[in-house]
Every structure is written in structure tokens, then in C-alpha cells.
């Protein structure tokens, strides 16, 4: 691992400098994570008085549990829909801004501020707009399409609501990185293609999109992580996993089973599975994203 050509010789000082970081990491990250692994092998009795070692039973139970498998499916649908919507919209906006010369800054300012809105607040905002009795969207849907919107009863409506709220919040982030990615594509390439007679759409498919792929891939990983974990607040502020588990994504289920339902063994096993997932995603991010710099 890299250091400087010359270094300071002090023996104790570096440990002292690292101490705050390592102490906090140890107490609040490593210890609880270890506890989660440990508890995932235990089963507590109904009163929390004693616990017995049950090996992998908490895990095998999860894999047989229809509710858990359902939650996996819900997470998959939610994640894919949110990521596609957030990436798609922001790419279109970034392409449009990339054409602008004088107004680019103004548009950028008007598009980036939702980054600062808390996921929970984003949830509340859309929840208000889609409120079945007074919301503006159900009113429009009812009168234009005769559709009776009710996210507290209809699973698909609820899913649509959380997807929209989560994607809305993520657009600004993706937009900024797409704009940066577009700017790093040499204009000469696009000009050469234009001289060869390629129209704007052909240029997009054959030049811009392939050269943008490192950015897209990076954003894909970041967005998947976002939909898997940070959207907890969106779900909790709006549907709370309902109706009938229709929006109960994995990370919300950990909370429901553990903190609300007090089923520690199962919740810990779910935690461990999710941690495994983050490890894989982080690995992918570092392994492949590093290469994007080589352009």
C-alpha cells in the first residue's frame, strides 16, 4: 500500500491518530456485525430468557419461508424499477443539458437540489400527492383514465408510489455524474461521426452510449445500493411495507422482524445475508469501477 517517499519516524503517534476512528469502528460496526453473525445461529425462547444454538436453522427456515421469498421478489421488482427509472430520466436530462451552452448552469441548479431532500421527506411529499382521498394524482387518474388509485389497498399502486418517490430523489445524483461523464467524451469523436453522416440518434447509440458505459456502470452499482438500503426511510414514511407485504423490501423486513417483531434469530440471519450482499456489491464497485479512470 502506498505511502510517501519519506515518512515520519514516530512509533506511537500513528496509533494515537487512528485511535478515534478504530474505536468507533470497533464498538459500533464490528462488534454489532459480529453479534449479528453470532445471534443468527441462536434461537431465543418466547420470553428472551434463554437461547439455544441451532446452527444454520435460522437460515434454512428463511429459505423455506414464503414471506421471506416474497420479500426477495418485492425487492427485486422495486430495485429494478427504481434504478431503470432513475437512470433513464437522468440520462435524458443530462443529454439535453449537454447540448446547452449558456443555460447549462441554470438548468443544473434547478435539477440538482433534490439531492438534499431526505428520503423520508421525499416519501412524505409523494405520499401527499398520491393521497387517495385528497391527492392530486388520484384525482387526475380518476377523471382522465377512470382509474381508482389506492395505495393503501392495492399492492401495485403502493409499489408504484415507493418507486416514484425513490427514483425522484435519486435523479439529481445520477444527472450530475452523467453530465460529468458526457463532458469527458471528446467532442472530436462526435464531430468525426457527424462528418461521416451519422445523425444525432446514430451518434448517441454508437458513440456516446458506449463511451459513457463506465459512468453508467458505476451509477448502476451506486443506485442498486441505494435502492437496497437507503430507501428504508421512503418505505417507512409511506407504506410501512404494506399493503399485505407488497412493499416489504428486505432491509425493511430486517427492521420489522427484529426491532418490531423481536424475532432476533431470524432478523440476524437476514442481516447477515444483507451484509454478504453489500460485501459483494462493494467488491464489484471497487473491482470494476477503478477501470473507468483508464479512459
Amino acid at each position, binding site marked *: 500500500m502506498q505511502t510517501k517517499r519519506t515518512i515520519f519516524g514516530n512509533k506511537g503517534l500513528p496509533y494515537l491518530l*487512528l485511535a478515534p476512528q478504530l474505536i468507533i469502528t470497533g464498538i459500533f460496526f464490528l462488534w454489532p456485525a459480529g453479534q449479528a453473525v453470532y445471534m443468527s445461529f441462536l434461537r431465543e425462547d418466547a420470553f428472551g430468557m434463554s437461547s439455544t444454538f441451532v446452527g444454520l436453522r435460522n437460515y434454512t427456515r428463511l429459505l423455506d419461508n414464503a414471506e421471506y421469498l416474497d420479500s426477495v421478489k418485492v425487492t427485486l421488482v422495486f430495485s429494478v424499477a427504481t434504478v431503470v427509472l432513475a437512470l433513464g430520466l437522468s440520462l435524458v436530462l443530462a443529454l439535453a443539458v449537454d447540448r446547452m451552452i449558456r443555460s447549462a448552469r441554470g438548468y443544473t441548479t434547478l435539477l440538482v437540489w433534490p439531492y438534499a431532500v431526505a428520503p423520508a421527506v421525499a416519501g412524505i411529499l409523494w405520499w401527499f400527492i398520491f393521497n387517495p382521498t385528497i391527492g392530486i394524482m388520484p384525482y387526475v387518474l380518476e377523471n382522465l383514465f377512470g382509474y381508482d388509485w389506492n395505495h393503501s389497498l392495492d399492492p401495485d399502486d403502493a409499489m408504484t408510489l415507493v418507486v416514484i418517490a425513490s427514483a425522484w430523489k435519486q435523479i439529481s445524483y445520477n444527472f450530475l455524474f452523467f453530465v460529468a461523464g458526457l463532458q469527458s467524451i471528446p467532442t472530436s469523436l462526435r464531430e468525426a461521426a457527424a462528418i461521416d453522416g451519422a445523425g444525432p440518434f446514430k451518434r448517441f447509440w454508437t458513440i456516446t452510449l458506449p463511451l459513457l458505459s463506465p459512468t453508467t456502470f458505476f451509477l448502476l452499482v451506486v443506485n442498486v445500493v441505494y435502492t437496497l*438500503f437507503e430507501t428504508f426511510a421512503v418505505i417507512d414514511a409511506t407504506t410501512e411495507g404494506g399493503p399485505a407485504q407488497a412493499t416489504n423490501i428486505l432491509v425493511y423486513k430486517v427492521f420489522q422482524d427484529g426491532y418490531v417483531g423481536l424475532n432476533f434469530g431470524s432478523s440476524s440471519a437476514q442481516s447477515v445475508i444483507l451484509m454478504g450482499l453489500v460485501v459483494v456489491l462493494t467488491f464489484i464497485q471497487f473491482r470494476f469501477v477503478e477501470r473507468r479512470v483508464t479512459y
Partner: protein
Amino acid sequence: MVENQRWLDYLAHAVLILGVLLVAFPVYVAIIASTHEPGAFVTGTIPLLPGANTLDSYAGVFAGGVASQMSVPIGVMLANSMIMALAIAFGKIVISILSAFAIVYFRFPFRVLAFWMIFITLMLPVEVRIVPTFEVIANLNLLNSYAGLTVPLMASATATFLFRQVFLTMPDELMEAARIDGAGPMKFFRDILLPMSQTNIAALFVILFIYGWNQYLWPILVTTDDSYQTIVAGIKRMSDVVDSEPLWNYIMAVTVLAMVPPVAVVIFMQRLFVKGLVDSEK
């Protein structure tokens, strides 16, 4: 571009204007709703034009006029959010700049191990280790305290990596010159490294302030005492009233108040914000 296609420019403008409207729509609705009186929401749909109530809802929430739905005055919630955001941003920067300094400018046993221990924190979001983390906080008697609210969130792999990157790009000659002149490590850190990383620190501060302000699950877990409630976590409880219709104008006023500080930071410090965002993902 080589060719001048007018219709594409118009299309681009149209797309952007639509995008700006789409992005602003929910906030517009919230602001409008906060200017109406509670009665406006009982019949029909949400109004789309400003009401006659203008700033009364805001005055109402500040005066604590909605006691039935708010357990703590809004001023307390805002103060708590501010304390939390500032403490987390400040703490994270101090802790991670010190560890990056140790990792880059010293060579010592277990250096790589320490680096990996910090790296691991990247992989363990609070959301996935809820129950055990809660137990640790409870055992340390940190429930319902500012320490519990902020300290556990101060470890940061991203910030450490960022500063490591910054330090690695600084010319070696600086440090050699400082050593020749007889400066010790801490003097070098204070007089050369800190001033030279100023912009990076400011950019990161912006990002971390937003991060801290927007925390949701953590305050819910750690605080049961209402006097520690933050505004982002508090809105949920307001809209959760069981037996009466939610007072939408007040809820939306609080929602708007919860958005103002971080959004203002992004708008007024846009350059630093963009830099911080791009830097911290490297």
C-alpha cells in the same frame, strides 16, 4: 456541434423544462398546501394555488399551536437536527483526516489491517445491523443523548479514503522540506497539510452536513425521549395521527422547514457541493 439542428435544441429545452417541473412539482404542492387553512383539505382535492393563510401555518408550528400532533416545539426539532448535522460533519472530518494522515505519512505494524478495518465500515449500513447496534447503544447508556445520536455515525470510510487520496497527491518535497526545517509531524499537519486541504474539507463538509441532517432510522432507534427528536424523524409521527384527520397544512409546513437548510446549502454552495459529491465517490 458540427451541424446546427434547431429542432434538437428546442427538444432539449422542452425536455429540461419538463424535467425541472417534474422535479419541483412535489415541493410546489407542499408549499402551496402549507399556505391553506386546515379546512381546505376536508373537501375535494389538494389546492394548486396559494391560499389566504400565507405564513400562518409556519407561525403556528413555531408557536406550538399544533400541540395535538406535535409532542415537541418545532424549534427544538430544528435545533436537534442542526446539532446532529454539524456534529456528524465535524466529527467525521476530524476523525478521518487524522486517520488518513496516519496511514499516508507513517509506516507502522498493522497499518494495512487498520486500513481494512476502516474499509469494512463501508459495507455495514446501519439498516442491516439494526438489532445488535441498538443493543450496543443501550448497553453503553447512550440512548436519548446527543452522543448516541452522533458518535456512532462518525466513523467514515469514504472520508478517510478521500483524505488519503488528497494527501497522496501532495508533493513529497513539502514534507521533506518541513522535516529539514525541523518541523515535527503535528506541526507539519497543522501548518501545511490542513491549509492545503481546505477546499476538500469544505466540499466534504457540505456533503456530510446533508448526510447528517437527513438521517432517519438512526434518530428513531436511539431516541425515545421527544426532546431529542429531529425534524426529519418527527414528520412521520405527525402524519401518523390515529383518530383525527391529519392537519395537512401544518405537516406540509414542517416538511418544507425540514427541506430548507440542506436545500439552501446545495443551492448556495453548488460548486463545493458538486466537488464534494464527485470527490467522495472516487
